[in-house]
């Protein structure tokens, strides 16, 4: 069921033949070559390599196939034009996982010590699970293919209705003007838009909340002099998001040493007091770190109100 791996001779890659790249002719001399079309994905390649080494999939020493897998990836990269980015990246993800696993094997065997070891174990288990799952579907695909082929040897009787029966059919109701029909044609001929590739977030209406903006608001109130409780500071917050933003803003302000906190005991009331001596302080002096983050400056898709 697992298609045998085509060895060097007949396996001159179709894609490579079209690529006048000198690099490919070098690699063509390498021992192991496969026709790109032989594989329908990274798992397929991995299974191919495992079967080439006559390894049981459950006992495979992945390190032995890693090198070949990586070699294959290099070939893919050389033939870059022939490969869609997403396709190539699937291969690279698995190559990276394999490399990790290989690296782990080079180290002395021992106890699992840290989170990194555990992550590696998980990566390995996941790779195994996915590989086994893929293998099952590949076998089933073979069975489906055989069945479809066998069944194609039976031709159904599907003859046109005999004239006297066709004449019995009720007259069609036709309500379309030529213009309506043309409209229908235009709709039917329009290229179908590809289905969305990602989950749309457009329907989520989280109002943008800017941390800096909230810092500005609280800074203004605190500079008046009187210490304020956190409760008081958030009394006008319309959403939880604003509460969170104000809390983050306070942490930022604390780091900038413009506020001090007082809390007699855990979970007790938090009192905030202005300590900055710069009366001219404004939120633009807050740490730059928010700017560099993936969510610039705000929680949600924040627009920067203060700049």
């Amino acid at each position: 069921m697992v298609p045998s791996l085509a060895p060097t001779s007949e396996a001159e890659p179709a894609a490579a033949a079209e690529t006048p790249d000198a690099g490919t002719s070098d690699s063509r001399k390498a021992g192991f070559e496969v026709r790109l079309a032989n594989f329908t994905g990274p798992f397929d390649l991995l299974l191919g390599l495992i079967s080439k080494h006559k390894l049981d999939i459950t006992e495979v020493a992945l390190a032995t196939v890693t090198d070949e897998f990586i070699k294959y990836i290099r070939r893919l990269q050389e033939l870059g034009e022939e490969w869609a980015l997403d396709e190539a990246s699937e291969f690279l993800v698995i190559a990276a996982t394999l490399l990790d696993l290989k690296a782990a094997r080079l180290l002395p065997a021992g106890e699992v010590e840290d989170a990194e070891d555990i992550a590696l174990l998980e990566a390995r288990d996941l790779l195994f699970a996915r590989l086994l799952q893929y293998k099952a579907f590949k076998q089933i695909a073979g069975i489906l293919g055989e069945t479809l082929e066998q069944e194609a040897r039976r031709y159904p009787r599907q003859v046109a209705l005999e004239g006297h029966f066709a004449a019995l059919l009720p007259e069609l109701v036709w309500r379309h003007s030529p213009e309506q029909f043309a409209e229908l044609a235009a709709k039917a001929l329009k290229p179908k838009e590809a289905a969305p590739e990602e989950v749309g977030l457009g329907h989520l209406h989280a109002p943008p909340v800017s941390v800096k903006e909230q810092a500005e608001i609280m800074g203004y109130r605190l500079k008046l002099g009187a210490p304020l409780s956190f409760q008081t500071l958030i009394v006008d917050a319309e959403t939880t998001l604003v509460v969170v933003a104000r809390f983050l803003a306070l942490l930022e302000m604390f780091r900038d040493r413009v506020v001090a906190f007082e809390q007699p005991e855990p979970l007790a009331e938090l009192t905030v007091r202005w300590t900055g001596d710069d009366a001219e302080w404004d939120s633009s002096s807050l740490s730059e770190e928010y700017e560099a983050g993936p969510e610039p400056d705000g929680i949600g898709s924040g627009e920067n109100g203060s700049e």
Partner: protein
Amino acid sequence: MRQGLNLTESEAGKTAVSEQKTLQDGLAELEALPGGPRAALEAVLMVIDQPATSEELAAGLNVTVAVVEDLLQDLQREYSGYTVKAPDVDAVGFADASTAPRGFELRNVAGGWRIYSRSDFADIVGRFVLEGQTTRLTQAALETLAVIAYRQPVSRARVSAIRGVNVDSVVRTLTQRGLIEDSGNDPESGAVLYRTTSYFLERMGIGSVAELPQLSPHLPGLEGIDEYYDASRM
């Protein structure tokens, strides 16, 4: 044939009785024709161009579903070369033309009945019938079809994750070939979900997806995966 909805109990009872009567009349009517109900069923089977359910056939012939199903089974056996139950012909050694298989067979696929040429004659029939000749599916298409068949309804992203590659163009091909279809959107992600069609069942020669071969024998338990780890760790 269809019953009304707002019947009192006694009316319903009467209708059931009268319907029963009509169906028996239907059978009597067929008995009077040359070849009887069996031939009438054959005549109908000659004009259908897609599998017909036994209910549809029963309605057309005006007999009960049970009667039609008996007839269908008789025909199926007869076409395949088994002697039909015929009390007057049970002399042994009777092996003439009537017990040789016919060139066609009656099959129950995709939930309906339809006549097919016997596969033994595929090469000969193929010379006459160009239509319906389908090109073979690629390995990628078969694998994608397999995942969809066993995980339906399923999104392309899910199929992609299992196969490890993008499946967009393969899904398009399978849709155009009529083997899979859009079955609405995932309530959570909004992604289009795909399922196999009745044409797929027809091509596979099965009645429903429940008849697909079991996946489990091909999928060793993943519980033992830790052992694999230990084994290869040496």
